[in-house]
């Protein structure tokens, strides 16, 4: 807790106020303090209940569903549902695809953001301002604008997937991991974030290394890169969470390629299989499995996540 922490400020003000004012107002304040925690707890309940509802629902068996009236809490929790998810659904494929695609995209985004952010922050060259404007401006373009054109750019990629040089004849990059990853290889926000971090590092280090005869790559790799590790960690987490959960694009390009579907997409496109009341618990268990990896990663690394770093785009 630092001196600039509003928490400290609040407490200080409260202490000062209580010393000055008469009892009734002081009591009002204390009641306000309790009320604050009651409100926070109620809010937290609203945040958690839908998740709890899913975990409870996953454990319901046919006996609970067909009871009259249907039981909310299962009489006998069906823990076997998690094994059934793997036995009855292509869960392994979905899971593997989620891991592969998220891994590839995250690695690519970190690499391109770090290099581009570094160039924009630490070199002075003609065109730098324009490229930076592009990076900032491109963030304003909503994704729905790109779905149709990028779909067909991949579809008609010359010489790919049986296409001739004019992009005709085959299926292009559709139906490959490339179609899932390529449109996300660069993240404008990530480039912007890394540039902001590199700007904060003094130029002296670079100049000293240059005088010592270090190559540009060496300066980047051995001197600058280690200094922005916290930013890299933040960006890695962001990319991981975002792309583990990505849905619209992946669904668009894998609708007819089940072997490439990720967890959210697979569960969504298989909704017909869950129409049956008994199958609902299977769906809920599958959803729980799709959420779990992110929550585990988040809990392990939450210190990084809630740091103010990633709001730095605002300032």
């Amino acid at each position, binding site marked *: 807790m630092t001196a600039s922490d509003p928490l400290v400020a609040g*407490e200080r003000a409260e202490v000062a106020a209580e010393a000055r004012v008469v009892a009734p107002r002081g009591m009002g304040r204390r009641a306000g303090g309790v009320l604050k925690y009651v409100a926070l707890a109620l809010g937290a309940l609203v945040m958690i209940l839908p998740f709890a509802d899913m975990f409870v629902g996953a454990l319901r068996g046919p006996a609970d569903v067909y009871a009259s009236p249907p039981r909310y809490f299962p009489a006998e929790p069906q823990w076997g549902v998690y094994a059934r998810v793997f036995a009855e659904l292509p869960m392994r494929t979905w899971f593997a695809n989620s891991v592969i695609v998220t891994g590839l995209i995250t690695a690519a985004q970190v690499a391109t953001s770090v290099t581009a952010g570094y160039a924009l922050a630490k070199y002075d060259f003609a065109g*730098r301002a324009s490229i930076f404007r592009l990076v900032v401006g491109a963030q304003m373009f909503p994704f729905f604008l790109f779905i149709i054109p990028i779909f067909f750019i991949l579809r008609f990629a010359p010489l790919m997937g049986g296409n001739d040089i004019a992009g005709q004849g085959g299926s292009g990059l559709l139906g490959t991991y490339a179609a899932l990853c390529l449109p996300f290889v660069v993240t404008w926000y990530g480039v912007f974030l890394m540039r902001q971090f590199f700007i904060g590092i003094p130029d002296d280090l670079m100049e000293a290394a240059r005088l010592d005869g270090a190559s540009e790559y060496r300066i980047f790799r051995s001197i600058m890169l280690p200094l922005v590790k916290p930013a890299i960690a933040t960006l890695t987490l962001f990319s991981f969470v975002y792309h583990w959960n990505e849905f619209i694009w992946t669904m668009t390009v894998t609708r007819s390629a089940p072997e490439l579907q990720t967890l959210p997409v697979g569960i969504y496109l298989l909704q017909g299989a869950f129409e049956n009341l008994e199958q609902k618990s299977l769906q809920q268990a599958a959803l729980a499995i799709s959420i779990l990896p992110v929550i585990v990663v988040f809990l392990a690394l939450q210190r990084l996540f809630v740091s103010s770093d990633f709001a730095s785009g605002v300032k």
Partner: protein
Amino acid sequence: MERRPKEFDPAGGGWAPWLFLSPLLVFAALFFVLPLGFSVYLSFTRWNPLGTPDWVGLRQFEYLLTRDTTFWATILNTFVFAFGFVVAGVPLALGLAFVFSRARGKAVWRSVYYLPQLTNIVAIAYLWQFVLDDRYGLVNRLLGMAGLRGPDWLTDPVMAMISVVMVMVWYDAGKNMLVFSAALEAVDQEIYDAATLDGAGATRTLWSVTLPMIRPAFIFVTITSFITGMGFFALILAMTGGGPRGATEVTALYTYRMAFEDLRMGRASAGALILFVIIGVISLLQFRALKERAT
């Protein structure tokens, strides 16, 4: 062997910056400029992707804007969704950030409120489908226990829109809250001290010190939330599918279906461009309005 510093423009680094930037430049060409251009071109054509695009000039725009009543209905739905999301979501996020900043155990509270942000949108949609189920959902069961008959959250057209807005607010609260928290923490303690010395009470301090200081964050959150709300259709697709009877069909979802279900690529591109222009104009107006009030 002696190596000298670069002869020209030491900070320029010769070709080095261009090498570092090459992935970005290739990407910008292939996945930003090219698609935008292609999209504009397609909007002037009629194209079922099996054949070649037919140039039809402005006819797709003309059809959407003057004859397609569904298109206008989806525009209206888009506005209701986006404004509902901003009007309910931004004050809520700000309020949460305030309460958090003065509460013990900040990190724990924040993680709890951030939980939906970590969850894929399909799970979010289904979670709420279960909770809001007309007959056996958690909410209506609880209301039933209290002797009340809960509304048809997802099957009544008006309630369905309210439900998707509520879920969107629930989903996004944690993100905006963090932006506001960061802004609140960045306000210099000395300013608060000065205000206290000048005899400003808590309410006065809030209105005259804290809120003006976090105005940039407020503008940022309002505009980005609006842009998000106008273009976001994954939640609606998975939760209501645009129904019941088109009551939650937003324009982005409508054009998506036009493209990938009806295979009308030209018209869908035109629809997406119209939506994009509307979002751009309104964001600009919002930015102006919020900026001016600051001066």
